[in-house]
C-alpha cells in the first residue's frame, strides 16, 4: 500500500494542481499560456528547482536543510569577491560551488557526527552563513563577471540557459538516485537507518553526503541566480528555505524520510513557479503570493497525510489504518539516529518506533 500511495498520490495531486493552475491562471490573464511566458516563468524558478533537488535528497534521508538560502547568498558574494580579486570567471564560479559544498559539509558533519537534529543545526547555520555573507561582501552589491551573461541570458535551442542547467542537474540527479546503489542507500537510510548500519554501510557518510549535495546545489543555484540578476548581494535567497521545503513537500516527499521522488519535486517546482507567475501577471501583490505558498504547503501536507486513509474509507476497506503519526515525530531526526550514543538516543528511538 505504501508503495502505491507514495507514487500514485503525488501524481494525482500534482496533476490536478497543475491542471487547476493552468485553467485558473489562463482565465486570470490571456498572456499566461504564451510559450515565452511559460519558459520565462520556469527559467526564473531554476534556482529554486536546483536547490529543491538537493533538498529532496536531504528530506529522503529524513533530514531537512533550512540553511539553503543563506548558502546561496554566501556563494554568490564569494563569487563576487573572487571575481573582484581578479580571478578568472570560471575559477570564481568554482570558488562559489566549493563554498556551497563546504557549507553543506559543515551541516553534514554536525548532523552525522554529533547526532544533532538537522532542523536546529540548519536554523543555526542559516544565521551563521547569512552573517558570513554579510561579512564577506561588507553589505554592498557586487557585480557579476561579464562572462556570466550567457549563463543568465543565453539560450540553447530556444531554451533559456538557467532552465537548461536545471534540467541537466535534474537528469544527473535522477540517474544517481534512481539508477545507482547510492540512490538505493539514500532511500534505505531514510526508511530504516539501523538496518543500513547493520548491513555495514557508512550511514554517517551517506548522511553527510546528502547535506554536501544540498550545499553544492545551493551554491550552483547561487551561481545561476547571480548570472540572471548580474550581481551578488548578501540578502539574496531570503525565504528560499520556505519556498524549497514547500516545493519538496508538495512534490510528495515525506519529512519522515524514505518516501519521495525527484519527478515529484520537478513537477511541484513547475506548478509553484506557474502559480507565482500567474499571480504576478494578474498583479497580485507578493505578500498574497507568500500567503498562497504557505496555504499550498499546508493544504498539500494535509492531503498527503489524510488522503490514503480517506480513499481506503471510501472503498469501504477497514484494514487500512489512519495515519499512524500521533506525535509529530519530525523534530527527532532519523538521519541522525545512528550517530547517537545509546544513552542519548533511547528517548529518540522510542519515538521513532512508536511511529512505525
Amino acid at each position: 500500500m505504501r508503495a502505491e500511495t507514495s507514487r500514485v498520490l503525488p501524481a494525482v495531486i500534482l496533476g490536478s494542481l497543475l491542471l487547476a493552475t493552468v485553467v485558473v491562471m489562463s482565465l486570470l490573464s490571456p498572456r499566461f499560456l504564451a510559450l515565452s511566458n511559460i519558459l520565462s516563468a520556469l527559467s526564473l524558478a531554476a534556482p529554486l528547482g536546483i536547490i529543491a533537488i538537493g533538498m529532496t535528497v536531504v528530506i529522503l534521508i529524513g533530514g531537512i536543510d533550512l540553511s539553503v538560502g543563506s548558502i546561496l547568498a554566501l556563494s554568490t558574494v564569494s563569487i563576487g569577491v573572487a571575481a573582484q580579486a581578479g580571478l578568472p570567471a570560471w575559477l570564481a564560479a568554482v570558488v562559489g560551488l566549493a563554498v556551497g559544498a563546504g557549507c553543506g559539509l559543515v551541516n553534514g558533519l554536525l548532523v552525522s557526527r554529533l547526532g544533532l537534529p538537522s532542523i536546529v543545526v540548519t536554523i543555526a547555520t542559516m544565521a551563521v552563513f547569512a552573517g558570513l555573507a554579510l561579512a564577506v561582501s561588507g553589505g554592498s552589491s557586487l557585480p557579476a563577471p561579464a562572462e556570466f551573461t550567457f549563463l543568465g541570458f543565453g539560450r540553447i535551442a530556444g531554451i533559456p540557459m538557467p532552465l537548461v542547467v536545471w534540467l541537466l542537474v535534474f537528469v544527473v540527479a535522477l540517474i544517481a538516485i534512481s539508477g545507482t546503489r547510492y540512490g538505493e542507500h539514500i532511500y534505505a537510510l531514510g526508511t530504516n537507518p539501523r538496518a543500513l548500519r547493520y548491513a555495514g554501510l557508512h550511514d554517517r557518510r551517506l548522511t553527510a553526503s546528502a547535506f554536501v549535495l544540498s550545499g553544492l546545489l545551493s551554491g550552483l543555484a547561487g551561481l545561476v541566480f547571480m548570472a540572471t540578476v548580474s550581481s551578488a548581494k548578501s540578502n539574496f535567497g531570503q525565504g528560499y528555505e520556505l519556498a524549497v521545503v514547500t516545493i519538496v513537500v508538495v512534490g510528495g516527499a515525506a519529512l519522515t524520510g524514505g518516501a519521495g521522488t525527484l519527478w515529484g519535486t520537478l513537477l511541484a517546482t513547475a506548478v509553484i513557479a506557474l502559480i507565482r507567475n500567474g499571480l504576478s501577471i494578474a498583479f497580485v501583490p507578493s505578500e498574497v503570493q507568500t500567503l498562497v505558498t504557505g496555504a499550498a504547503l499546508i493544504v498539500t501536507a494535509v492531503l498527503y497525510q489524510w488522503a490514503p486513509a480517506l480513499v481506503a474509507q471510501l472503498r469501504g476497506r477497514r484494514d487500512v489504518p489512519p495515519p499512524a503519526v500521533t506525535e509529530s515525530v519530525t523534530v527527532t531526526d532519523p538521519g541522525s539516529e545512528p550517530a547517537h550514543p545509546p544513552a542519548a538516543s533511547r528517548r529518540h528511538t522510542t519515538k521513532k518506533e512508536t511511529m512505525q
Partner: protein
Amino acid sequence: MYSDRSSQFSIAGFLVILLVALAIAAPRFFDPRNLGDLGTTTAIAAIVGLGALFVIVTGNIDVSAGAIYGASAVVAALAANAGLPTPLVIVVAVATGAALGLVNAVLVTLLKLPSIIATLGTSSLFTGGLIAITQGGLWVVGLPDGFTWLGQGSLLGVSVPIVVAVCVLAIGAFALARTRFGRRFYAVGSNPEAARLAGIRSRAVEGSAFVINGALLALAATLTAARLGQAQNNIGASITIAAITIAVVAGTSVFGGTGTVLGIVLAAMLVQTTTSALTFFHLDPLWAQMTQGLLILAALILSVVQRRRSGLGLVPRLLRRKEAVDAR
C-alpha cells in the same frame, strides 16, 4: 532533577566572563540607562523563551514565532490607537496570539502535520495575511501614553516589563515544576508512548504548548510595541531564531523532555547581553543573528560532548559519585 544543572552553571559562567570582559573593554556599557534597557529587553526575551520552552519540551518546534509576534504587536498597537483601555489591549493581543497558536495546534495535533511543516506554512500565512489585511507595509506610530507605560513606565522603581516577566516566569516555573498540568509537558516530550499509557492525552498537551507559546509571544510583542511606542509588521523578523536560541542555550533538549525556566532566564540574559553589546559597538543586527546561530551550535555541541564524556553533566556526575560513596 529534570534537567542538566551543569548547563545552567555553564551559562552562568559564560555570562560572568562576558560581563567582566565588557566591564574592562567598555565600562560605559554599564551606564544605568543602558542597563535599564538591557533589563527590559531581557525580560521580554525571557517571556519569548518560556513560550519556546513549552513547545520544544513536548518535542515540537515553532518557526512561526516571529510571524505570531509581528501580528500580535500590530494588533496591540492598532487596539491601543483605537482608544481601548490598556488592560483590554493586552487581552485582545494575547487572545490574538493564542488564536494563532491554536491554528498551529490544530494543524499539528488534529491534522497530524509535522510541526516544522505546519509552522513553516503558518509563518507565511500569518505574515502574508497580516500584510494583505493591513494593505502593505503597516507602521503604527503615536501610541497613547497609557499604553506605552507598559513598556517604558516603572512600578515601585522597577520597569514594568521586568515586573510582568517576573510574574509570568514565576507562574511558568511553578506550573512546569510543581503542578500535574506542567509535568505532563515533560512526560509527553520524553516518552509520548509512556505518557499515553499513563493516561495523558498527549495531543491535548502538545496543542496547549502551541497555544501557550502564542499567548506568551503576544504578551512579549505587546510589551515591545509599548516599549518602542510603535509597531510594524516585520517587528518579529528576528524572533524565531532568538526564541530557539534561548531555548536551546538554556539546555532544553531538542529531543524533547527537558528544560527549565531558570535555564531560560539565564539564557535570555546571555543572549540579550551579547546582542546588546553588539549594538553598543554599533554592529549590524545581522551580526546579532550570526552570534545567536553560533550560540545555538555551541550549546548543541557542548551538550553532546558532555553526554559523550560521562553520560551525564558535571554536577550530576559529582552527585552520583557521592551516592556511590554513600552506598558503599
